[in-house]
């Protein structure tokens, strides 16, 4: 029997598979039991009430999805009163994703989440839809350092920090998060993109630009995980285009300790269960006793990164 457990700081997960924020909700409990997942991750909450963006809010493009959902949020008190009890029905650790437009508001939101049965905070410092000019904290190391420091002071819960692939300096951003006390980084969020309808001359999203996700972005997310894992000591949680156990294995080999499955769940609602089951089967086939042995096991010794192509 393969040991699927992984450790993210002080948290032990029964397997490395969890949903990506915003692509999962308690509604999925109508299809299968959450008890078989490694962790649960909520849609990003904001302290203030938000309505979200105009429709159309999604458009498919190749094997990927563009979204400009925005972050429609009923606020944190509503979450604690109405949504949290639904998640308490499962014993799987609950990670709550939070965001805010300033570091101070961010810390305030995180403080409100100091309630029982929340296992960790995932600070979404990367959402490209709502920050001014599409600039998020995680675009730069300095703004990352500032917000993570505030958040670290605001909570004793394990603090995961979710990065954006839109930065040109992922390594420096990842190190800034680690330096200021993040317990793990999630790599990464959606990639800023757009789509146009050639027939109507109109943008295909109501929000003109949106975040790109799904299999189409997997190679980019994989590269980012590899770059981050090289420069930080804290666990990296891989996210971006993961739909199968093979995808999950690739992310773990690149250095991820655990993985998040997002858009794949829309296409195949049981995708996460398949990843868990097939991951066990994969390890069995390869004679790997512990799935955690895959983390960073990429055989790249003696190989060089192409200096002309490589981003920092």
């Amino acid at each position, binding site marked *: 029997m393969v040991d*699927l457990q992984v450790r993210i700081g002080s948290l032990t997960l029964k*397997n490395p598979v969890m949903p990506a924020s*915003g*692509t*999962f*909700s308690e*509604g*999925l409990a*109508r*299809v*299968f*039991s959450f*008890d*078989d997942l490694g962790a649960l991750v909520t*849609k990003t909450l904001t302290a203030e009430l938000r*309505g*979200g963006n105009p*429709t*159309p*809010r*999604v458009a*498919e493009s*190749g*094997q*990927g*999805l563009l*979204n400009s*959902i925005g972050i*429609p949020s009923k606020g944190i008190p509503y979450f604690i009163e109405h949504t949290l009890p639904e998640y308490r029905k499962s014993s799987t650790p609950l990670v709550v994703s939070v965001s805010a437009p300033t570091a101070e508001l961010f810390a305030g939101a995180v403080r409100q989440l100091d309630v029982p049965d929340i296992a960790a905070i995932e600070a979404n410092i990367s959402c490209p839809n709502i920050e001014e000019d599409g600039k998020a904290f995680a675009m730069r190391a300095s703004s990352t350092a500032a917000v993570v420091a505030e958040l670290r002071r605001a909570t004793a819960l394990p603090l995961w920090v979710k990065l954006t692939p839109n930065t040109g300096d992922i390594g420096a951003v990842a190190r800034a998060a680690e330096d200021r006390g993040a317990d793990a980084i999630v790599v990464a969020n959606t990639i800023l993109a757009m789509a146009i309808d050639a027939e109507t001359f109109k943008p295909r999203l109501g929000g003109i630009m949106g975040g790109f996700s*799904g299999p189409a972005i997997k190679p980019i997310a994989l590269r980012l995980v590899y770059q981050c894992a090289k420069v930080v000591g804290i666990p990296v949680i891989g996210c971006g285009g993961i*739909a*199968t156990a093979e995808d999950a294995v690739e992310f773990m080999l690149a250095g991820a300790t655990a993985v998040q499955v997002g858009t794949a*769940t*829309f*296409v*195949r*609602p*049981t995708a996460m*269960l*398949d990843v*868990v*089951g*097939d991951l*066990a089967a994969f390890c069995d086939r390869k004679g790997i006793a512990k799935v955690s042995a895959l983390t960073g096991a990429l055989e790249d010794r003696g190989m060089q990164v192409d200096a002309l192509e490589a981003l920092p």
Partner: protein
Amino acid sequence: MSILTSLPVQTEAGEQAVGAVPSLGAFEVADTRSVVVVNRAINDDYCHLVLEADGPALSARAGQFFNLACPNTAADMPYLRRPMSVYRVSPAQRRVEFLYKVAGAGTRGLATLQPGDTLAILGPLGNGFTLDPRWKNIVVAGRGVGLATLAPLAEAAAEAGIGVTAILSARAKSLVMSAERFERIGARIAVVTDEDGTSDFANVERHLVTYVEAGQADAFFTCGSNRLMLLMKRLAARFNIAGQVALEQQMACGLGMCFCCVRNFETTGGPEQRRVCVEGPVFDLAEALTW
């Protein structure tokens, strides 16, 4: 419970989009691997798809829908699933049926399905129509593929002893859908078309007012046309009649997770956004708004 005991059926390589779980007793929604029995064009615009299925899929009710994993073809690779209302469910024959219009990549893919092919259908999803046992007569009015959504409602009403009057609207007589299903339950039918000029607002309004005045409209039901919806909403308010409308919006997950399918509604508490997939697709006519 071990992870392995609750695993879904493994799918064969290359069949990823059709990966389906066998119906797990305790869950109300399943990703059912259905098998195509019939898939054929019924007129220039619409196709009829009959599937063999089992489990929760067979408990779908009128107004509910499924999210279909449309197959890839040489020309098209639809990535997301496509929502389709149930056209008919026959638990005894283990059949679920859809009526669809070929519109783009997803439905073009559906049109290539052959008997014996498999298709993953997630559902039943959403809230269907509700019938109040105190009602004696209802009026349903639909246009185009909206009639596919209303046909099972009319049958459920007939079964509950409620009389049905149906206004079937279409561009042309040859495109009127499901007339025979409304006939079979003894519905009173008015066919209105653009072709012969009978589908205009004023004429349909005259029909509706006649039914109301004859005491044959305890509730209004509509699907498939913004104009019909607005007309029925106005008349329902004027005559104080209950009403329900099945609405559409682009969807991704179908399960309330992604928030892409919101529409605006007017409620006594002010304007409100609701998700068509979980708060609908059937809504109170009085609260529904057009785009």
